[in-house]
């Protein structure tokens, strides 16, 4: 046995260097698909940006059912891709299973935490970005009521709602925040009809600004707001251009940057939990030519000073995910 030891380690070293030589990164999308105008598309844009900047190549794969998660992640790792970037909170169990099988491969999980030595978990401080758009909503509201439409009722989406409500109440302690969710199955991400009806129900209760964190369902919410002559707030990607003049702003989540960084850092990246918050520029609010007329200088100043205070730690935005409670509900 001892005689063979050097040969084996030499062989594995050879294999390692061989895989390192053409270790292309890989990207696995979540169920929403590559072109969802939101979360997954942002990841794709980040990967494309990396490809243009470095001239490198990468693999990508779209899953079309729950059963393919583990299978495809394993296939990417087996094919020698390194690092393997996996999108979505639903893939946390996937990596818990696959990552230990490939200790020499580095995995990156976006939107959830997996505590393994070869996994980098990238999470966003959605509550901070939502806090800022909550402030904008409260300042723009004329009725003193704002509302939130979530997709599936999961802690991640409740964190959006909680941050939004905290921001709104920071501007106007008496403001009424209506919180609704579309449903409890994955179809809640793709039901614009129900999203529109929920938004209309909220408008009848006095809301004049609605924040949608609901994937494809959000498109129905934004449309309902425009039809009613009211305002909406988009999510994840900049959705201001969808209904110029009606979308007040968008809560940005810089998923593309997270993917770009992971690809750039390569297989030898630092693993562990990376939190992309306001300080790191991972979340924010969108300001462009489509909503320049809706955001007054006064509003912008207030939000910018709150942003600075959050970064400095003077304002602490509570994260629903830490203890499953929200101080303002």
């Amino acid at each position: 046995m001892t005689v063979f030891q050097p040969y084996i380690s030499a062989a594995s070293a050879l294999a390692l260097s061989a895989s390192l030589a053409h270790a292309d990164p890989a990207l696995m999308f979540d169920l929403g698909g590559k072109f969802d105008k939101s979360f997954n598309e942002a990841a794709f844009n980040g990967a494309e940006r990396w490809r243009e900047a470095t001239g490198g190549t990468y693999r990508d794969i779209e899953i079309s059912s729950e059963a393919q998660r583990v299978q495809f992640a394993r296939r990417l790792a087996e094919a020698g891709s390194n690092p393997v970037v996996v999108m979505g909170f639903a893939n946390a169990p996937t990596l818990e299973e696959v990552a230990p099988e490939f200790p020499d491969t580095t995995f990156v999980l976006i939107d959830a935490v997996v505590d393994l030595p070869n996994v980098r978990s990238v999470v966003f401080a959605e509550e901070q970005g939502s806090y800022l758009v909550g402030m904008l909503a409260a300042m723009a509201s004329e009725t003193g009521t704002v509302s939130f439409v979530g997709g599936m009722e999961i802690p991640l989406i409740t964190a959006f709602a909680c941050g939004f409500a905290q921001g709104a109440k920071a501007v106007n302690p008496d403001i009424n925040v209506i919180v609704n969710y579309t449903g409890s199955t994955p179809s809640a991400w793709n039901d614009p009809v129900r999203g529109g009806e929920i938004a209309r129900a909220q408008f009848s209760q006095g809301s004049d600004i609605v924040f949608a964190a609901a994937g494809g369902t959000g498109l129905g919410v934004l449309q309902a707001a425009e039809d009613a002559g009211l305002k909406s707030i988009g999510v994840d990607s900049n959705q201001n251009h969808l209904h110029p003049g009606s979308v007040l702003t968008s809560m940005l989540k810089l998923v593309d940057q997270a993917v770009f960084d992971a690809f750039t850092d390569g297989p030898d990246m630092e693993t562990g939990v990376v939190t992309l918050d306001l300080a790191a520029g991972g979340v924010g609010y969108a300001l462009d030519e489509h909503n320049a007329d809706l955001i007054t200088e006064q509003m912008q100043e207030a939000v910018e000073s709150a942003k600075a205070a959050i970064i400095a730690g003077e304002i602490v935005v509570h994260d629903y995910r830490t203890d499953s409670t929200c101080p303002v509900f």
Partner: protein
Amino acid sequence: MDLSFCQVFFDAQTCLQGARPETWVTVFSSTLRLATPLLLACLAGLISERAGVFDIGLEGKMLLAAFIAAAISFVTGNVWIGVVAAIGASLVLAMLHGVASITFRGNQLISGVALNFLAAGITVVVAQNWFRQGGRTPSLSGDARMARLDLPFAEALRDVPLLGPIYSGVLSGHALMVYLAFACVPLTWYLLFRTRFGLRLRAVGENPAAVDTAGVSVTALRFGAVAICGVLCGLAGAYLATGLSAGFVRDMTAGRGFIALAAMIFAKWRPYPAMGAVLLFAFMEAAANTFQSLQVFGVAIPVQAMQALPYILTVVILAGFVGKAIPPRAGGQAYVKEH
């Protein structure tokens, strides 16, 4: 208003909300909108099954119709061209179902399930190929959407007590398709129970051999029923994409075809009760959208429970607690001519 009586049963916020008349105007007007695609699909299934052809594929036909309606409306800028195209697309699927289950005597359930899968896949693939927006169509605006109609005198009657909110708030201001769908209820009843075609159609679902003996073509009758089913599903899907929302999104029917089937069983294959059933189901959905934090006797009722209610009610019906639901006797069976 004294809310203490209400608060014996419900939580304070629900009582406060429920005491405002505007809340109910929204709920009932939302009920009518949500009921429309259900009603059209339910009548579609009803006619098909009365003729003895089970149709699980309502969902798929609606989905394809929704996509075609949105795509064609976007390209032409005219929603009515989109509606016609949607009916055409839905008819193609209906005829596929007819050929598989009437001509080739295949299993009707399997054919329906296959059509659902086909529609779910083909809509996304074609949408991605045509519009490159991740399997959805661009947002529709202007004439590419169904306009909302104001009923005559709706503005004048707005301030009349009681009548005003009901007429101007609930009944007025919907797309033409909503009124059309409700007009389809008496039409379906008349067609099924007062015309020769309807009598034969019902007979072919109960005892096709007798119809055949009388010299009437079973195949032609069943194809006729399946075609009507296709037209109605086409209207339902078109309304979903161009009336209720503004564009097509992947899987946007979200199980409405199956709720329609549940409503049909709940109504025991009769048109007027079908309208009652879809109104009940749509009301529950609208109420769930409005009252999301409902508490009864201090116990929070999860929204999910409200959303599951249509299915629970259907199971209760099928279990025979509320009455027996007997499908047409020859339903699900291909007719084989005796030689």
